[in-house]
């Protein structure tokens, strides 16, 4: 039946097929003038169809919340965890010693545990900051090149996951508290919704960035682009937090103590 429908498809790549003529030309020809954003995909994503993207972020938030709700298991909070936080007072100075301490305690907790390689660890420690900078770049530069809040958020999230994989889960959870993650996930989406809602008392419709002009210290011509940037940052924060939440909950089956 699917193939039956294929029979009348316009040829692949036909520039005059209805799909590429009706609406897309409007987007292509007007988007830059109206929004000052050269990447039309971002322009359409965050402005013309910004409402979709808002709910897309809500979907992500839902997923994080769902994973938390399904797997999080508060029962077995071990005292070990506190001991770790106690050792982690000094940062960066005695890094190797701190790691050694963690390792010794880990061996009796987790029977699948394998000593991790020094090379992997060092390399990861060096590249993680670069990955994070790249993630930030992708978020901020989404207007001009491929990328945007979502991709950048995923990159940031995966840099944190890499930290968990190369060291261990506790190292990650010590640096990024669960509470912080939960709050960031909600705040990220709230930034998006907040920007959208502020447009209403300013006299516009929901999400109408152009009405933000009086609030922003810049050329009113660029105000839509700035609005999109704000929104992308919100998306980035939410996605980063949610990716880590999902990973942490799955890998430790909700205990947040041991895991890959």
């Amino acid at each position, binding site marked *: 039946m699917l193939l039956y429908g294929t029979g009348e498809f316009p040829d692949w790549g036909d520039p005059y097929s209805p799909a590429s*003529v*009706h609406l897309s030309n409007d987007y292509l020809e007007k988007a830059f003038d109206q929004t000052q954003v050269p990447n039309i995909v971002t322009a359409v994503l965050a402005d013309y*169809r*910004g409402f979709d993207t808002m709910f897309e972020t*809500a*979907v992500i938030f839902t997923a994080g*919340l*769902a994973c938390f*709700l399904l797997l999080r298991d508060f029962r077995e909070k071990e005292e070990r965890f506190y001991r770790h936080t106690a050792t982690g007072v000094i940062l960066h100075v005695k890094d190797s010693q701190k790691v050694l301490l963690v390792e010794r305690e880990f061996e009796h907790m987790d029977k699948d545990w394998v000593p991790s390689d020094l090379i992997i660890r060092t390399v990861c420690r060096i590249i993680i900051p670069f990955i994070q900078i790249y993630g930030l770049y992708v978020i901020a530069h989404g207007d001009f090149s491929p990328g945007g809040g979502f991709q950048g958020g995923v990159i940031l999230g995966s840099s944190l996951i890499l930290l968990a994989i190369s060291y261990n889960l506790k190292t990650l959870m010590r640096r990024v508290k669960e509470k912080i993650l939960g709050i960031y996930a909600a705040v990220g989406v709230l930034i998006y919704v907040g920007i959208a809602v502020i447009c209403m008392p300013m006299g516009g419709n929901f999400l109408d960035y152009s009405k933000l002009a009086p609030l922003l210290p810049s050329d009113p011509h660029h105000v839509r682009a700035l609005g999109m940037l704000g929104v992308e940052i919100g998306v980035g924060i939410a996605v980063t937090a949610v990716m880590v939440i999902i990973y942490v909950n799955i890998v430790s089956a909700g205990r947040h103590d041991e895991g890959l």
Partner: protein
Amino acid sequence: MDNYPVLIVVVPLIAALLAGLAVWVEKRLSYPIALTGLALSTFCAVKVLMQVIATGPIQYKIAGWAPPMGIEYRIDLLNAMVLVIVSGIACLNLVASFESVSQETHDRTGAFYSIYCLFVTGLLGVTATGDLFNLYVLIEITSLSSYAMVALGDKDRGPLASLNYVFIGVIGASFYLLGVGYLYMQTGSLNMADVSLILAGHQGSSTVLTGFILCMVGLWIKMALFPLHVWLPNAYSYSPVAFSRAVAPLMTKVMIYVMIRLMITVFGYDYIFKTLHFSDAVVVLASIAILFGGVMALAQKNLKKMLAYIIVCEIGYMVGGAWMGNQLGMTGAILHILNDALMTFAVFLAVGNMVYKLKNVDLSNLTGIFGKMPWTMAGFVIAAFSIIGVPPTCGFFSKWYLIMAAFEKGAYHFAAALIISSLICAVLFFRVFEICFFPAVSPDHGELGHGESGHGELGHGKSDAHSPIQMEEAPVSMLIVSGLVSLSLIVVGLFSGTIVNTIILPFLK
């Protein structure tokens, strides 16, 4: 303020986010935040309904872009009615579920409220939107949150039921998305009004036909029409009560609304009933669904599961009515969305009260409950009468329209199925009444043994503790909501003529 249409959807979203924040800051705040959000949303919905009745359809351009480029909300009478139903029922349910949520989800109540608000946001957004793709995104929000909540229910079977629901739900949503893709390919637009304008010139195209069938199949999976219903009974009966009370009346009805919206607004009567020739087949399918739902309901031992099969049966009513192809049928189907939402809600409220007290609603466990929970059972009886279709209650009127439509069309099998299923429902509910009315025969509880062994033992101990008959009512908030909704069944029944004349007939014109 002309921002009401979007506020209906956005306020619950903000409430969900704030409730999600409150999980980490101050747990007790989640419930009031969620309640306020839903109440505000109901207020906006009522405002919008009144405005629509007064001045005709409202169009709201999101982000200020003109429709085919931006997303628009277009609220007409049908939308506005469904919005009021959804937000009202969601809000009332939240009022009733404070106790049962803290009983069932322990340390995670805050997250539960947050995800509940997201669920409602999704349903409201699906109803309000005028954009095909936006609809898909919102359907996904709804489904994701319901996957999570189904899994929270029964410790043993909840996750498995939920995972099966995920598979089938994803197939359904993907079919819908694919159908939208076919339409987009033919028209180049995603706005419903715009698409329907362009489609008028492509009546015979096979791409449009495929797109139409894919959309419909996707929605049928989501609403659990007969051969595609397998996920529904398990998912509904293993979920926590607070959630099944919301999902049972709302989810399927909203999907039926979407189907009617696509049929009327996007494809149009002419295309469906004149160009295509399978509307009769769909009516036959609906008749089978009705009979099958009824028969399966008879075979169930658990009250919740029995009601889940009755939902399968009710879906048959509405699909059949909508595909009948005449005005009476459509009127009946739309009126039945309202009525069925209310009566399913009423009956699930009563069941929720029972679950709160008894934990386990196998039929064998319900003996003598009339004496213990008279108010709950009064609500249950009214709701049951409405489902059977006894005249003063609202269930009667929509069935009347549906039967008239079937006779007008000459679809006697559908009329027969309707009548038979009403009889089956009557038998079913009187059996339940009988069990509930008479107290357990003797202290030895010999008749409890034939329940499912594990559950039976549990129920056994429970009813032993309460064997002297005494009032064991559910909390007052639950009772008040239950009474209110049961009352509304009769009120809506008495005013159904008004509803049809002010809302449904002007819409169908």
